[in-house]
């Protein structure tokens, strides 16, 4: 049956149903089902989150200052983003201001994550969709060297280097124990890179695996470790002491030098390895600049982030742009108010929860989360689902909407919004790449565009990291070493009840936490996270979410080998542990709810 969705897509579920579960190389658990027509073109797509942990239920009654540690465990991949949203929500609720150094150090921590997380996504979660590891075995190491040297001045590029690597790979493959490369889609006709490009990419896959652990040492310096560094309501936990008794145990000259050195190396690696690889690989896959667009040409949202100065979260003080694009109108970027009840709302009529009235959505501060694992007309049983029923409930992910619109969030949204707002630092990155690939600006609205925007954002973040580092040094030089404002840290200083919101642009997109504090304890806590937006199921109006929209009209070579599905889904960098966290705001006893 063919139906038109209110947000402009055509769905037809009459063709062959294909189930891909698990979607691998993501965070968390995601299932994708599609229907393909007789030409193996995707005509219907269904996105199902397959886990729920209930973290926000667990937060109820706890100390608001501890919340960051709990919600940080929503996700260990984008580690820190939820913690940052949480401490901002508490500071917003209680009116706590932080020192300038704390704002800068938080920016450094956050940008460090962007650099590492985007790098790991490109090489370790996404590259194998484009790079054929087995093809690399037939590369000519000398030609590989010439290719690498034509693209970049990165020094690890000699014929001998690639020959050694190829030998290692060859013997690994010959051992018969293929480990993570077992059962891959090697030899699939959708792989287009020549063997030399494949060999170069495999070399950088391994180099990036070694290097990513260096980047996050910045988080370890300020936060004690990574993953899951430490944060603090009111500032940052690491004190600065350059020139006084006990400086060896604080952020001192040696620690700052280490940060500076890591930043320089990070910029080098991203600009000399990641970006050249991205452009080289993209040049072989230009057809993917017109596949997988989904919502991206019409509905994009960014909350904005990286305050230039402390305690001012207004759009003009943010390095990341703020705003919403709807109905494909790129001439107008609309403002966002996260506390307004009619803007961000969540729907559950296709999610495994129940509302009293499922035709309506609820603002996070009024949200409800009562599990309701009703699989409707799904094929199979509730403990062995063969195919979900998208006409009924089919996901642990809720359906968030902004003024009723399904939204795409993430690097592409940020870059397009920044671009159309005329943000110079973003235009300066986007324009040369479009020129180099010889594609129009509309090429951004695609699987390839999403992947390219992430790469550009990675270099953007690495250079901003340097700026923030210099800002920190300048402020210390000006005599300010404060890192925490403890004036309102003690609960005895708090008002009886307070509500707040903390928002962040996470690597995967717009993230916000809403908190309701009463009698010094958390009364209610709610997160609406990037992957909730992107992996969203349908809503009462029948609007489909970003993943589902992006998969439509994609031609598959062989529906049994889901490479094309992986390409588009991975271009969003899914994080399902994040997506499936919701809170019962009404104080219902979840443990006593009987799920039918």
């Amino acid at each position, binding site marked *: 049956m063919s139906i038109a969705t209110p947000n402009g897509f055509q769905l037809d579920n009459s063709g062959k149903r294909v189930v891909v579960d698990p979607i691998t190389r993501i965070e968390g658990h995601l299932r994708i089902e599609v229907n393909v027509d007789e030409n193996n073109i995707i005509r219907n797509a269904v996105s199902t989150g397959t*886990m729920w942990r209930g973290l926000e239920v667990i937060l109820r009654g706890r100390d608001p200052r*501890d919340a960051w540690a709990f919600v940080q465990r929503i996700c260990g991949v984008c580690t820190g983003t939820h913690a940052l949203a949480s401490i901002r929500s508490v500071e917003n609720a209680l009116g706590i201001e932080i020192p300038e150094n704390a704002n800068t150090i938080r920016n450094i921590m956050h940008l460090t994550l962007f650099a590492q997380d985007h790098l790991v996504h490109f090489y370790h979660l996404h590259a194998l969709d484009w790079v054929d590891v087995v093809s690399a075995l037939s590369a000519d190491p000398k030609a590989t060297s010439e290719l690498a040297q034509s693209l970049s001045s990165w020094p690890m590029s000699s014929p001998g280097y690639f020959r050694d690597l190829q030998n290692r790979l060859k013997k690994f493959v010959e051992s018969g124990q293929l480990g993570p490369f077992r059962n891959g*889609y090697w030899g699939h006709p959708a792989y287009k890179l020549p063997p030399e490009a494949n060999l170069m990419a495999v070399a950088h896959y391994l180099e990036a695996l070694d290097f990513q652990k260096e980047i996050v040492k910045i988080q*370890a310096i300020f936060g004690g470790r990574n993953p899951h560094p430490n944060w603090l309501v009111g500032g940052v936990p690491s004190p600065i002491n350059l020139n006084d008794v006990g400086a060896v145990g*604080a952020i001192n000259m040696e620690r700052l030098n280490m940060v500076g050195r890591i930043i320089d190396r990070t910029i080098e690696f991203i600009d000399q390895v990641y970006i050249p690889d991205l452009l080289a690989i993209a040049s072989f896959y230009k057809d993917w600049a017109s596949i997988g667009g989904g919502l991206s040409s019409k509905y994009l949202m960014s909350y904005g982030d990286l305050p230039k100065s402390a305690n001012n979260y207004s759009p003009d003080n943010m390095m990341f742009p703020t705003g919403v694009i709807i109905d494909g109108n790129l001439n107008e970027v609309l403002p966002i108010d996260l506390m307004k009840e009619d803007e961000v709302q969540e729907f559950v009529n296709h999610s495994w929860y129940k509302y009293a009235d499922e035709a309506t959505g609820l603002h996070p501060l009024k949200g409800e989360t009562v599990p309701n694992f009703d699989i409707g007309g799904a094929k*199979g049983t509730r403990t062995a689902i063969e195919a979900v029923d998208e006409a009924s409930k089919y996901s642990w992910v809720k359906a968030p909407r902004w003024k009723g619109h399904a939204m795409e969030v993430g690097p592409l949204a940020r870059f397009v919004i920044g671009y159309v707002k005329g943000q110079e630092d973003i235009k300066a990155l986007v324009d040369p790449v479009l020129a180099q690939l010889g594609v129009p600006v509309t090429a951004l609205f695609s699987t390839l565009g999403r992947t390219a925007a992430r790469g550009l954002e990675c270099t953007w973040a690495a250079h901003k990291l340097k700026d923030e580092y210099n800002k920190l040094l300048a402020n210390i030089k000006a005599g300010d070493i404060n890192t925490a404002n403890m004036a309102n840290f003690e609960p005895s200083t708090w008002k009886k009840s307070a509500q707040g919101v903390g928002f962040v642009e996470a690597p995967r997109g717009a993230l916000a936490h809403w908190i309701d504090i009463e009698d010094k304890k958390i009364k209610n806590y709610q997160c609406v996270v990037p992957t909730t937006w992107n992996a969203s199921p349908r809503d009462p109006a029948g609007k489909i979410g970003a993943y589902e929209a992006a998969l439509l009209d994609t031609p598959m070579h062989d529906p049994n080998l889901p490479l094309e599905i992986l390409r588009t889904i991975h271009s969003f960098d899914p994080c399902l542990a994040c997506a499936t966290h919701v809170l019962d705001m009404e104080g219902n006893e979840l*443990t006593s709810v009987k799920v039918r």
Partner: protein
Amino acid sequence: MGRQETFYELIRRQGISRRNFLKFCSLSAASLGLAPHFAGKIAHAMETKPRVPVLWLHGLECTCCTESFIRSAHPLAKDVILSMVSLDYDDTIMAAAGHQAEQAIEDVMRDYKGQYILAVEGNPPLAEDGIFCIPGGKPFVDKLKHVAADAAAVIAWGSCASWGCVQAAKPNPTQATPIHKVIKNKPIVKVPGCPPIAEVMTGVITYYVTFGELPALDKQGRPLMFYSQRVHDKCYRRCHFDAGQFAETFDDRGSREGYCLYKVGCRGPTTYNACSTTRWNEGVSFPIASGHGCLGCSEPDFWDNGPFYERLQTFPQFGAEATANRIGATAAAVVGVGIAAHAGLTALRQAKVKPNSPAETDKRA
């Protein structure tokens, strides 16, 4: 299936010289805290053993364990994955998806029955027949039991698999359950922490690959080599604790001078982990060194042992409140008490510890 290739054959064929191979073995021995003559044993093990298949499953979790694992500097995660074990299933990094991914599990279970390692990140929720985690459309708990059935041994990565961790904090709405309550008949090594330290994770794997057996465990199933002492025991700020020098709040004079963080909530005195010695991110830091107290993330039920910024109320060996205050007043006298109390606890712990095989442990001591 043909004869399996050994680790030694593999790295020789990768062009690594025997001399460098032996150097690697010495470094491995050192990183495991073993005497130099164990380098020979490691070399022998690697020359004769095939790569052990590892099936790494994810339940309810946040993937911080995988992220920590790839931070390992010695050995590099790359070398563990390519050369030490055969990581045949790990949905976070594997190339295949869907049917092709699930097939890898069945193939390894068939070809390496009783020989593979099951590594578990996260835990199964048992409420409502397990429907809060249904990768592949089926309850994760069933997949976990299925793969455990023919495993040689099981590694419980992190506090989720070991204790339950954050989703099992009160009121544990999904009934998230540590894996030892579901897998009853297999040896389980718990490697707790949220996440565990990278080199602790790869150290446990290297130990197994090298010696062909699990490391000595404490009564609760944790490797003695990394979890037998408290963060507090080896903390470099311990001298300030003993001298009664405390940070009273964040960013105060005491904090800037690196005083003890006990009064701002540090859980180091009750937390068994290697953070203060092995440290994090190739030794760059650990929480206390960067100014924040230890949250106690490798301890059972640490989430319900808050609020985190209040000083410990239940110091196991002496009255915390009283002692910390007395320390401030009469430091010298309290130092004596502290040492005596610590000695008493250490003796108690030693009495409780029951390694898997005392004889084996002695040989290695």
